[in-house]
């Protein structure tokens, strides 16, 4: 078992290396002279040269790569031109906002998608099956930013139920003391219900916008996987042996249907990390996606590079976690390998 997990870890390493290499290549595709960018618009030729030397851009590509990797290992992702801060510090500052949003969306997608898919599998051809199909198709085709704007228009402008899409918390409130960095949890931990409600109401629309995207794939995969398992020989044996219906459904069917659903959850998480960027823009969310886009449009490239690396690394970690969980859930993996 430990050997298997170690194996999965080892398999993730080439991916990590690939991510680092590709990000390096991407940022060195920049047209024009990065030194000129970093030196600023009013730089003289001498200061551009000095910037070039300081940034190590006068070294060979290989040497630059070595410097880059060394910097990464030390946590140096460069500095942001806009904020003047080290990129790493900026990212750490803004990560919790993105995390809370993404995890909230994943939770929503799981809580809606999996039961929907299950009901569709248990009653094929019924209205719930058709609903599942419709929601999945619509969710896949719906542009995330459009949905966000629609929700803002309906629930904020027309109905006045939702607060203004201006970020994580209305300026009247102070954020809760940091424990988990998730403001929903932290405000509950100090028992401040009005704060919790303020945080939550800012969170709902962005989470629904982002999460709806994930409902489709999860529902579809749950339905397909469960349907297949329900018609399997071993479920037939369980029924024939007179096992109670809920045990057949959960212990015999659902557990066996789980692995493809877990893999889909990983894929959904990847979509969410990407679509995060769009949702943050629509809702003025102070996360790393918005940070990267602001930087990008201002030709400030270090934050963009940092953002891409962090997202990719995070995704590799998530996949690794799913791989490990799969091994725990499905013992077949142990002796198939």
């Amino acid at each position, binding site marked *: 078992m430990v050997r298997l997990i170690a194996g999965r870890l080892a398999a993730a390493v080439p991916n990590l290396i690939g991510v680092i290499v590709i990000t390096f290549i991407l940022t060195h595709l920049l047209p024009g002279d990065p030194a000129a960018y970093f030196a600023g618009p009013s730089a003289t030729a001498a200061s551009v040269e000095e910037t070039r030397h300081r940034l190590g851009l006068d070294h060979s590509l290989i040497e630059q790569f070595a410097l880059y990797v060394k910097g990464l290992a030390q946590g140096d992702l460069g500095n942001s031109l806009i904020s003047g801060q080290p990129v790493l510090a900026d990212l750490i500052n803004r990560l919790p906002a993105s995390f809370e949003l993404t995890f909230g969306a994943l939770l929503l997608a799981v809580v809606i998608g999996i039961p929907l898919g299950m009901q569709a599998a248990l009653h094929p051809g019924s209205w719930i099956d058709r609903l599942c199909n419709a929601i999945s198709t619509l969710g896949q085709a719906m542009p995330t930013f459009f949905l966000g704007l629609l929700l803002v228009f309906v629930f904020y402008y027309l109905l006045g139920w939702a607060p203004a899409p201006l970020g994580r918390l209305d300026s009247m409130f102070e954020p809760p003391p940091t424990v988990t960095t998730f403001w929903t949890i932290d405000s509950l931990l100090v028992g401040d219900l009005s704060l919790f409600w303020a945080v939550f109401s800012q969170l709902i629309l962005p989470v629904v916008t982002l999460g709806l995207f994930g409902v489709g794939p999860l529902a579809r995969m749950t339905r397909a996987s469960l349907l297949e398992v329900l018609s399997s020989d071993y479920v037939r044996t369980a029924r024939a042996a007179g096992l109670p219906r809920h045990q057949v459904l959960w212990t015999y069917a659902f557990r066996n249907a789980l692995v493809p659903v877990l893999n889909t959850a990983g894929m959904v998480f990847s979509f969410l990390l990407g679509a995060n960027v769009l949702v943050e823009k629509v809702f003025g969310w102070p996360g790393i996606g918005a940070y*990267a886009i602001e930087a990008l449009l201002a030709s400030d490239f270090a934050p963009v590079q940092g953002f891409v690396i962090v997202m990719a690394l995070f995704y590799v970690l998530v996949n690794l976690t799913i791989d490990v969980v799969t091994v725990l859930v499905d013992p077949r993996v142990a002796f198939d390998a």
Partner: protein
Amino acid sequence: MLDQASIAYRLRAMRPGSLIALALLALLILVALIGSYLVPYDPLSPDPKHALMPPNPAHLFGTDQFGRDILSRVVVATRLDLAIAFAAVLVSLIAGSVLGAFAGWSGGWVDRILGRLIDTIMAFPLFVLAVGIAAGLGNSISSVVIATAIVNLPFYARQTRSEVNRRRTAAYVEAAYLSGFSPLSIVSLHIMPNVVPPLMVQSSLNMGWAILNAAGLSFIGLGVRPPQAEWGIMVSDGATNIISGEWWMFVFPGAVLLIAVLIFSLVGDALRDILDPKRR
């Protein structure tokens, strides 16, 4: 094997929804091709006297902050969005299948290295990668096309690789090889025709995704610049006007965008029915 007769049979046996989807696709393509010649107003020229008008008989979709007719802009944007998506899918289809076929045929370390490359692309959340590539290549339409193409590439590469790999050891392929046919001709004449149907289904779905990707990048401000008409950028313009209530600015481009992607999704299902009705 697919032949004339079985395709004809499957066309007749299609669900009505599929036929509608194909018809809508034809309509969409028609709009893309000749729409710009038929629009009532110039999509680019401002008309300040008529700015921010809600939908009315003269302007069915209303006007934007510069007085430009939104309907005209939406129609003209169809060509741009479809062209970007089509170019991206075509590039990734060709590059992906060539890479995949090469990997599937060669096997060994070539396969492994290419596999690693593909895996690494897939290790990025795809939109993030698109942003990164578009950033690296500069803020232009071609970088959006390339970014979308690279991000879509793995699907084609994987599918082609597995199909070619599967057939590589088939008896008829071995026979052809021994008879002196070059690998290139074997792959292109014997193997690829079998790979084409699933690739076509995949392409339709990828078109939808490419449109969303391109519109998303434009929404953020990458690629398409004003005053060009493109669905994503129009939604982005309209976003600022929501709080003042001018909903038509973002709703119409967004809705058309949604419908276009839906059409491609349904066409993909229809293609799957035609090409492989067993797998519903």
